[in-house]
């Protein structure tokens, strides 16, 4: 049953050293503020999973929080490679993380299977490629009706799912819209969940009868963090800060510069800085629609 908490308390109560965590958000609604709180609280030995580990995981990895990463596409979208990830994998800085690598289809199906309470996901995939040779968690099974061989991967069932949503009501029912990615599946697949939201309102308002709503009893903690997705975006609130994604390439290229940025913007900051970041960028040309 959802409890409405500060982000600090939500992370302190629900994320522990050694947990497996899915910070999800498919370009839209990436929970940056929550990841920064995890870094600030010094969590270690995390197994992190994410279809598209972009800046958010580059930061977690560079700050030494991560033991293992389950992923499908690790890049700064449209910009290039992830330099902190590369430094870990290629040079062991700050330490070498373990990788479990899948395709997008596999991970999307694995979250779906996790939400559906199944032990594995079954799909048509991985034919002719090398990934099954280096990942023991890719197996096959045979359709008992047609004999077709299908791919199977274990379902993803993290200890904690962390997402950013548009809004919640005061009971803790959570609403998201637009590119919803695998967030609903991640929350339903997880043992616990933390949802940061742009706003907490009396009533979710006149949403579609088929809106993506996570009932309060599927969510563990809700924290209001306006701007909490920045540099990702929140549909109807603020756009993607593409310029920051481009700028990250240079910030992350150098260990010292990376550490200085993290010190100034994460370790010595708090969740409140996110509201400032999006308001200074967008107030002139974007009105929240919700």
């Amino acid at each position, binding site marked *: 049953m959802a409890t409405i908490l500060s982000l600090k308390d939500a992370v302190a109560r629900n994320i522990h050293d050694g947990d497996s965590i899915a910070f999800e958000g498919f370009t839209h609604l990436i929970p940056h503020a929550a990841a920064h709180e995890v870094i600030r609280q010094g969590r270690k030995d995390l197994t992190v999973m994410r279809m598209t580990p972009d800046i958010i995981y580059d930061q977690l990895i560079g700050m030494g929080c991560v033991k293992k990463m389950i992923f499908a596409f690790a890049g700064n979208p449209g910009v290039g490679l992830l330099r902190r990830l590369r430094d870990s994998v290629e040079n062991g800085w700050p330490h070498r993380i373990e990788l479990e690598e899948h395709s997008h289809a596999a991970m999307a199906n694995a979250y779906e299977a996790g939400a559906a309470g199944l032990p594995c996901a079954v799909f*048509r995939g991985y034919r002719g490629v090398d990934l099954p040779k280096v990942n023991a968690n890719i197996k096959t099974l045979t359709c008992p009706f047609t004999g077709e061989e299908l791919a199977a991967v274990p379902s993803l069932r993290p200890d904690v799912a962390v997402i950013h949503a548009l809004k919640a009501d005061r009971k803790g029912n959570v609403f998201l819209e637009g590119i919803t990615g695998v967030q609903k599946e991640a929350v339903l697949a997880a043992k616990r969940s933390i949802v940061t939201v742009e706003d907490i309102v009396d009533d979710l308002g006149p949403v579609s009868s088929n809106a993506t709503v996570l009932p309060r009893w599927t969510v563990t903690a809700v924290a209001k963090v306006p701007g909490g997705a920045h540099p990702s975006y929140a549909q109807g609130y603020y756009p993607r800060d593409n310029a920051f994604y481009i700028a990250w390439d240079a910030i992350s290229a150098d260990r010292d510069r990376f550490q200085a940025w993290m010190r100034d913007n994460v370790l010595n900051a708090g969740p409140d800085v996110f509201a400032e970041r999006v308001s200074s960028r967008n107030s002139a040309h974007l009105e929240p629609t919700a």
Partner: protein
Amino acid sequence: MSDFTPSEMMTIAAARALSNDDVCFVGIGAPSAACNLARLTHAPDITLIYESGTIGTAPDVLPLSIGDGELCDTALTTVSVPEMFRYWLQGGRITVGFLGGAQIDRFGNLNTTVVGDYNTPKVRLPGGGGAPEIAISSDEVFITMKQSLRGFVDKLDFVTSFGHGAGPDDRANAGITTKGPTRLITDLAVWRPDPATREFTVTSLHPGVSRRDIEDTVGWTPKFADSVEETPAPTSEELTVLRDIHARTRAAHTGT
């Protein structure tokens, strides 16, 4: 006629390969530019799908990521990512999947995973993302890549997505029923698979490109079709529309 870049020619040649009836699974970069150029010129009813879940999208600027808000704002509808991979890609509804990569071999197999050994890579690339299943579930695959000795290699370090394997029976032997890569569109030429061997063969050279230019930029001895055509140069409409998209995109992404 000389007033265009090889990169523009590549995007324009890719756009021309698309038709009004196509349902395209669009990747970022050159594919996104090509698909939207097609939509804004000869194929206004083409359906563009990005794997973030946006179906029938019509962005005014090119997205930097596959999930920019512009894609959702202009889409017919937006579905969850599990649904995108299950109902739309695996369901067999994509006519053309667009792929690129860090390395390609002569059979259209692609590597976007590692340079060097998998466990101790020289360069850790982003990984496959949607590519392994785009390569097997789309009716056919178009590949766009700039030619270079580093990228066009004799042997891939890692097979991230499957093309034609090493010959005509390999897709069927792997249990794949779709056509696979049918066009390779580069900054220098258009290549198509040889009907017998499935090896990519140059069928059209872009204006001003020589066979030697091709040979100098691929890590194997390239084959040429019996009759190699010259790719028609970009029309002024194609160039104008493409440059307008890029200008709008640059302005949007740098926040100016």
